[in-house]
């Protein structure tokens, strides 16, 4: 029996990842959009149809109840959502309204007989948990875990439904993350700094390496939360990134951090500590002083 699948995504890029995830079920999913999302931006991604819940509220999360109603009306068996912040929130609310199980941030999906099988990480990223759900389910997929499908070319029909308006949450203002703050999740290459740096002035070394590589600079949690050297950090409770290149300097590589770089294509690490866990989680590692390595590497890169 073909699983009837609906997808919510906050952007066309994420929607394309959901198309790939849905392929595990041999199904062409339908797409649900809310508020001021534009169906034209999603038209040719390969969805069977686009259901647009219109409304004045700019917050997608406020349409969750209406989404659940639409899924029930359509006898949807699986609600698949790429797990950015908005997606995760909507997925969990819909699971709550439908009273059904939900797998969070699945990186692997398979169709079993009358069941959905999914894998996700727990215990800070050290453990893989495989779950099986029979009947209706909600799954959020880890961003970057599934390749974005190529556009199908065929424009999906659009159905418009009045999404109603939940005005109990009001958006008063939006501020960009911070002056000049970089969105690491969109960076092609990232140099990551860790506790191997003991003074803020020392970060200059990392910035010079980043400039030579054409990379942005990120950090591990203590440099943001304790030292306040950065507004955000890479890790399980921070940014999860999937760049072409992740190059760490002075990062020990605790699981809570390395789960944030699981999607990186190439991981290079330098640490003075030969026993640092990062060396079990990198493609290429250099044991040694990060300042010495950077000075020796810079002339090689120009």
């Amino acid at each position, binding site marked *: 029996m073909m699983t009837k699948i609906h997808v919510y995504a906050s952007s066309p890029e994420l929607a394309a990842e959901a198309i790939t995830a849905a392929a595990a079920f041999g199904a062409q999913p339908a797409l649900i959009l809310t508020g001021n999302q534009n169906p034209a931006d999603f038209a040719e991604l390969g969805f069977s149809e686009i259901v647009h819940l219109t409304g004045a509220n700019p917050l997608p999360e406020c349409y969750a109840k209406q989404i659940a109603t639409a899924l029930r009306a359509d006898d949807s068996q699986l609600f698949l959502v790429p797990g950015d912040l908005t997606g995760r929130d909507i997925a969990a609310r819909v699971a709550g309204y439908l009273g059904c199980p939900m797998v969070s941030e699945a990186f692997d999906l398979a169709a079993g007989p009358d069941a959905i099988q999914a894998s996700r990480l727990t215990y800070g990223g050290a453990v893989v948990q495989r779950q099986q759900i029979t009947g209706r389910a909600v799954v959020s997929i880890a961003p970057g875990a599934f390749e974005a499908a190529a556009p199908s070319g065929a424009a999906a029909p659009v159905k418009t439904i009045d999404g109603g308006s939940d005005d109990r949450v009001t958006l008063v203002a939006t*501020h960009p993350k911070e002056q000049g703050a970089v969105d690491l999740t969109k960076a092609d290459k990232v140099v990551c700094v860790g506790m191997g740096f003991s003074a803020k002035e020392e970060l200059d070394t990392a910035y010079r390496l980043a400039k030579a590589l054409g990379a942005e600079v990120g950090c591990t949690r203590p440099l943001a939360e304790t030292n306040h050297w950065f507004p955000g950090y890479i890790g399980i409770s921070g940014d999860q990134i999937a760049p072409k290149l992740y190059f760490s300097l002075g990062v020990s590589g605790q699981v809570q951090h390395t789960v944030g770089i699981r999607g990186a294509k190439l991981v290079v690490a330098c640490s003075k500590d030969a026993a640092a866990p990062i060396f079990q989680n*990198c493609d290429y590692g*250099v044991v040694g002083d990060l300042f010495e390595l950077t000075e020796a590497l810079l002339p090689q*890169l120009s």
Partner: protein
Amino acid sequence: MTDVIVGCKWVLDEADVRVQADQSVDFSLAKSKISEYDKNAIEAAVQLAQQLGGKAVGVTAGPATAKKALTEALTRGLDEAVLVDTGDAGSSAQIAAQVLAAEARERGAELIVVAEGSSDDYARQTPSRAGAILDWPVVTAVSGFAAAEGQLKVSRAADDAVQELTVTLPAVISVLPEACDAPIPSLKAALAAKKKPASEQSGADLGVTPVANATTTSVTGYASERQCVLVEGDSMAEKAAKLAAILKKEGVL
């Protein structure tokens, strides 16, 4: 008087989990503790209860052994703590959300505060689910908060911006660790905790329904698929030269 309910999860310490060479997972050495991020949520609930003129009540869902969570939770400024015994049903998000919603209804609470995720599961479902069960508004990823008349003003760390929102009460919020520090309990607070009410209720009596159609089929250690090649050399200059060649070959320069 507005009661503020805060979720306190009794979890295995993720630092003690051992992955063996055959990828099996050994939990036997793991001690139990209140989830790291719940400490920040408890402090947020205590502050909000003060601002709203109500009580801060810690709620733990889990088996009878989870009662130890209440002792620690009470040292952190809560007025009261409750264990809802869910027996074998455990403390997954789908269960925890039911428990928090049921407690909120029973106590006429107007605010549920939860950490953004738990340090063992980090599923990030509980707050949104609880809000849906109650049909209350929810704000996740809260990085700053203040109570006003019948509502909260919150900052939310959205994907590419910080949102300033108002949310009417009753509501559910989940807080990031950066929303407020979790101070180390003073000796005075630890002593005062012993006099505060810690009670137990049965999950079944509260109407908590176990989850029948979702099962965990396996639990294994995460095997890194990285190459783990160490770049060797007699000098740093040699290592650097080799690394540069590797970066060129891998097409990342």
